[in-house]
C-alpha cells in the first residue's frame, strides 16, 4: 500500500521555483486500478515518479508499505523498486539491441542465481501477452502495441505489487491503446496487480476503480467508483 501525505515537489530553475506538486495526498490500495488524469504540465508524471520511489518529495511524506522513502538512500530505493514496483513508459524505453525476451528479463540481470528461471518466466509472460512467437524479435521488428506489451512483460518480470504506467497508450492508436489497457485490467483482475495509470486520455477513466483529477499540482477531485469497463 502506498500513502502520500501532503506531498510537495519543487524545482529550482535559477531564481524561479517551479511547483510541480502542491500538497497532494493520495492512497493506493492493493488491487486498485487507479487512473490519474490532468492536462499537460499538471504534475502527473512527477506524482507518479514520487509514488514509484523514483524521486523524493520536497516536502510531505510518501510511505510504501509503511516505509518512508525520504529516509532511504539510492540503494534502498533501487531495492524497493526491484522488489515491489514496475514501470511502463509512453516511449516503451526498450533496448534496441536486445530482443523481446532479453528486454523483458533485463531487470533481473543484476540478480544472483540461475538465469534460466527468469528466462522461463519471461517466456511465460510474453506468451500470456500474445507474443509467444515474437520472443527473438528486436524492438524495431515489432509494432507499437507489441512493443508496449513487451514493456508490460518487463514491468511484471520481478513480480511487483504495483505497476506504474505513464501515458501507456500515448504512442498508440485508439484500438491498440484500448487493447493495452484491457491487458492491464486483466492482470489487475486475475493476478491481483495494482495499477496506477497516468494519462491525459479521459477515456481510460472508465476502467478505473479510483479516478484522480489533477491540475496545477493539486488534486481537484478524487472518486472511488465501480468499474464501468472490464
Amino acid at each position, binding site marked *: 500500500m502506498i500513502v502520500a501525505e501532503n506531498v510537495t515537489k519543487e524545482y529550482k530553475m535559477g531564481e524561479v521555483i517551479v511547483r510541480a506538486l502542491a500538497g497532494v495526498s493520495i492512497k493506493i490500495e492493493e488491487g486498485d486500478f487507479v487512473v490519474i488524469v490532468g492536462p499537460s504540465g499538471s504534475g502527473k*508524471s512527477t506524482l507518479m*515518479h514520487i509514488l*514509484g520511489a*523514483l*524521486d523524493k518529495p520536497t516536502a510531505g511524506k510518501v510511505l510504501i508499505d509503511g516505509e518512508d522513502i525520504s529516509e532511504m538512500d*539510492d*540503494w534502498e530505493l*533501487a*531495492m524497493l*523498486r*526491484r*522488489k515491489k*514496483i*514496475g*514501470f511502463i*513508459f509512453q*516511449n516503451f*524505453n526498450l*533496448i*534496441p*539491441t*536486445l530482443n523481446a525476451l532479453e528486454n523483458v528479463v*533485463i*531487470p533481473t*540481470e*543484476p540478480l544472483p542465481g540461475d538465469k534460466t528461471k527468469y528466462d522461463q518466466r519471461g517466456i511465460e509472460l510474453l506468451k500470456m501477452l500474445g507474443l509467444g512467437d515474437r520472443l527473438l524479435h528486436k524492438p524495431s521488428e515489432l509494432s507499437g502495441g507489441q512493443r508496449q506489451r513487451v514493456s508490460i512483460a*518487463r*514491468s511484471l518480470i*520481478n513480480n511487483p505489487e504495483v505497476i506504474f504506467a505513464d501515458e501507456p497508450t500515448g504512442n498508440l492508436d485508439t484500438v491498440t491503446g484500448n487493447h493495452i489497457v484491457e491487458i492491464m485490467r486483466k492482470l489487475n483482475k486475475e493476478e491481483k496487480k495494482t495499477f496506477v495509470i497516468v494519462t491525459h486520455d479521459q477515456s481510460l477513466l472508465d476502467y478505473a476503480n479510483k479516478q484522480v483529477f489533477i491540475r496545477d499540482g493539486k488534486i481537484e477531485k478524487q472518486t472511488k467508483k465501480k468499474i464501468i469497463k472490464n
Partner: protein
Amino acid sequence: MIKLSFLNLFRRKSRTFLTLLAIAVGVASIIVLVSLVDGVVADFTEVFEQFQGLIVLEKGAADVPFSKLDRSFEHKLEKINGVKVAIPEIWVLPNKIDGQIPEFSLATVMVYGLDLDKYHVSSGSGWIAEVEKGSFIRNSDTDSVVIGKKIAEDYDKFVGSVLDIDGKKYRVKGIFAGQSEFIEGVIVMPLEAARELADLDADKVNSFTVGLTDPSKDKQIAEQIEFIYSDDLQALSMSQYSEQFGEIFGSLRLLVWAIAAIAAVVAGVGIINTILMSILDRTAEIGTLKATGWTNENVFMMIMYEALSIGILGGIIGLILGFMVDLFLASILNINFLITVPLLLQAFLFALFIGLIAGIYPAYRAVKLDPIEAIRSG
C-alpha cells in the same frame, strides 16, 4: 550484463572500431618496439657469453676501434697472475668491400685482425665461431681471410673466392657460422695484415683479448689490471660489457614504454570519449534500468565492462597485429625479434589497465544520471 555491455559496443560500430584501433596500435607498437630491442640485446648477449675473459683497451677509449695501445702490454699482461694469454687485436671498419661501401646496419662489417697462432695455441676462447667450410688460417696466411656467413651471403663468396677490402685482394680460406649476425659480419685476418689495412704503427694494436685460467675471477683480474696500469688501461670483463650494454638497452626499453604510455593516454581518452558519447545516446535506457531496480553499482559495472571489453578486444587485436608486423619485418629486414610471453602478457595487461582506468569516469557519469531526467529525455 556482460552481454549487454558487449552489444552496446557495437551500436556505434565505427566509433568503437576507431577506439579499438587506437588501443590495438598502441599494444602492437609496444610489442614491435620492445621485441626489437630485446632481440638486439639477446643477439649481443649471445656474442658476449661465448667469450669468457677480458677485453683490455686504452683508458678512456669508448670502444675497440678508438683505442690504441703499445704492443708491449702483451707481455706485461701475461705476467699478471691468473692471465693465461693476451692476444693482440686490431679492428678495422672497412671503407669498401668489393668496391662497394658496406651497408650500414646493426651487424656492420668489421675486419678483425689478431695473432692467430697465439689464438690457436690458447685453443680459442670461442670468440671466433666454428668454421663450417674451408679451414682456419695462420699468421703466415697473409693474403687470406676467414669470413662470417653473412658476408659470404651478402657478397656471394665461397671458399677460394677473392674478397676485395679497400682495394686489397684476399683469398677466402674459410667461412664460419656464428650464433648471431654480429659474429657473422666479421672478417678475420692475421694481425699484421689488419695493421696494413688500419695503417697502424708497427708497435701499436687496438686492444687485447685476455684469456684467464679461471674465468670466474674475471672481474677481480680486471680490477687488478686497472689498478696496476691505472694511467693506461681499462679492462672490461665480458660480463661487465654485457651488463653495460644491457643498461643502455634497458633505458631504450624504458623509452619505448614511455612512448607507449603516450599512446595509452591517447587511447584512454578515446575510450572515455567513446563511452561518454554512448552514455549520452542511451540516457533513457540507463534511466529505465535504474527505474526497474538496477542499483548504481549495477550501472557502474555495466559501463566498466564496456570499457574493459574495449581494452581486452583492443589488446587482442594489438597482440595479433604486433605479432604480424614482427613476422613481416623479420622477413624483410633480417632482424631477430624476441617475443616473450611476459612481453605479450604485459602488453595485454597494459590494454586492460587502460580500459579499466578509462572506464571509471564514464561509469561515474552514468551513475550520476538522474533516472527521471533520463526517462523524460526518452
